[in-house]
């Protein structure tokens, strides 16, 4: 036993040296590069929306040369505002989960991750409810197309985020994270904050601008 310990010592020292020289972990590096590519993905969608919107003679477009009432989504933005609050709150709880695991508080980490997951699912449920009551479809002029494309792709990203959160929660329950080893939590939180920021820009563009 003593022999094996002394044999491992040089390797341990080498690993510690390599760790000290490492600038950023691979999961976080990969996630930030992925987010950079996602910025361009959503930029394309927003650019298309702005291009259509600011070159249109009327916005929202007229239907049969008359204003189409369901397009007046600004007048019914209560649900969207609630969904915005839900998503912003979920970012807060996600960050609280990160802070908790950084200081080794696994109970608070699991609680906050669970709340974040529930808030994410609540957002998705609210979005589905909104879709069912909007009164226009994706084929109803450029307004419908851009609205559903933007919110739909964002919703898909929220769904992806909830899947990541589910995995993080499962691994957390299995005791796989600690104050030293929680890169997956950090990476997931970065993605979740990004999805939140995209929604704020989306909400501002569609409902407030």
């Amino acid at each position: 036993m003593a022999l094996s310990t002394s044999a491992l010592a040089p390797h341990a020292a080498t690993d510690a040296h390599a760790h000290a020289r490492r600038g950023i972990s691979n999961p976080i590096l990969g996630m930030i590069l992925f987010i950079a590519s996602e910025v361009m993905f959503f930029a394309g969608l927003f650019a298309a929306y702005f291009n259509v919107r600011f070159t249109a003679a009327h916005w929202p477009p007229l239907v049969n040369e008359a204003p189409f009432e369901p397009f007046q989504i600004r007048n019914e933005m209560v649900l969207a505002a609630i969904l915005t609050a839900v998503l912003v709150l979920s970012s807060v709880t996600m960050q609280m989960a990160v802070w908790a695991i950084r200081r080794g508080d696994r109970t608070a980490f699991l609680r906050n991750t669970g709340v974040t997951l529930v808030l994410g699912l609540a957002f998705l449920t609210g979005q589905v409810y909104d879709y069912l009551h909007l009164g226009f479809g994706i084929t109803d002029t450029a307004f419908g197309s851009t609205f559903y494309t933007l919110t739909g792709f964002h919703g898909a990203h929220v769904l992806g985020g909830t899947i990541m959160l589910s995995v993080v929660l499962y691994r957390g329950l299995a005791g796989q994270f600690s104050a030293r080893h929680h890169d997956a939590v950090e990476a997931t939180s970065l993605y979740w904050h990004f999805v939140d920021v995209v929604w704020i820009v989306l909400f501002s563009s569609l409902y407030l601008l």
Partner: protein
Amino acid sequence: MILKARYAALAGVVFLVLAVVYGLLSHDVGGVTMLGALGIAISLAALVLAAGSPRGDEQ
């Protein structure tokens, strides 16, 4: 030469400036959106690649 991560992130500022100039000249909001997002994306990529490389001060 030691490349600081925060200085690397300034690479994206070039495109943000370009977005402003392009917007003033063309009034094309879609193009400004793409150039602005490119600036943000390049800043993120440069930041993380510079921060992710082995620290130069230990070599």
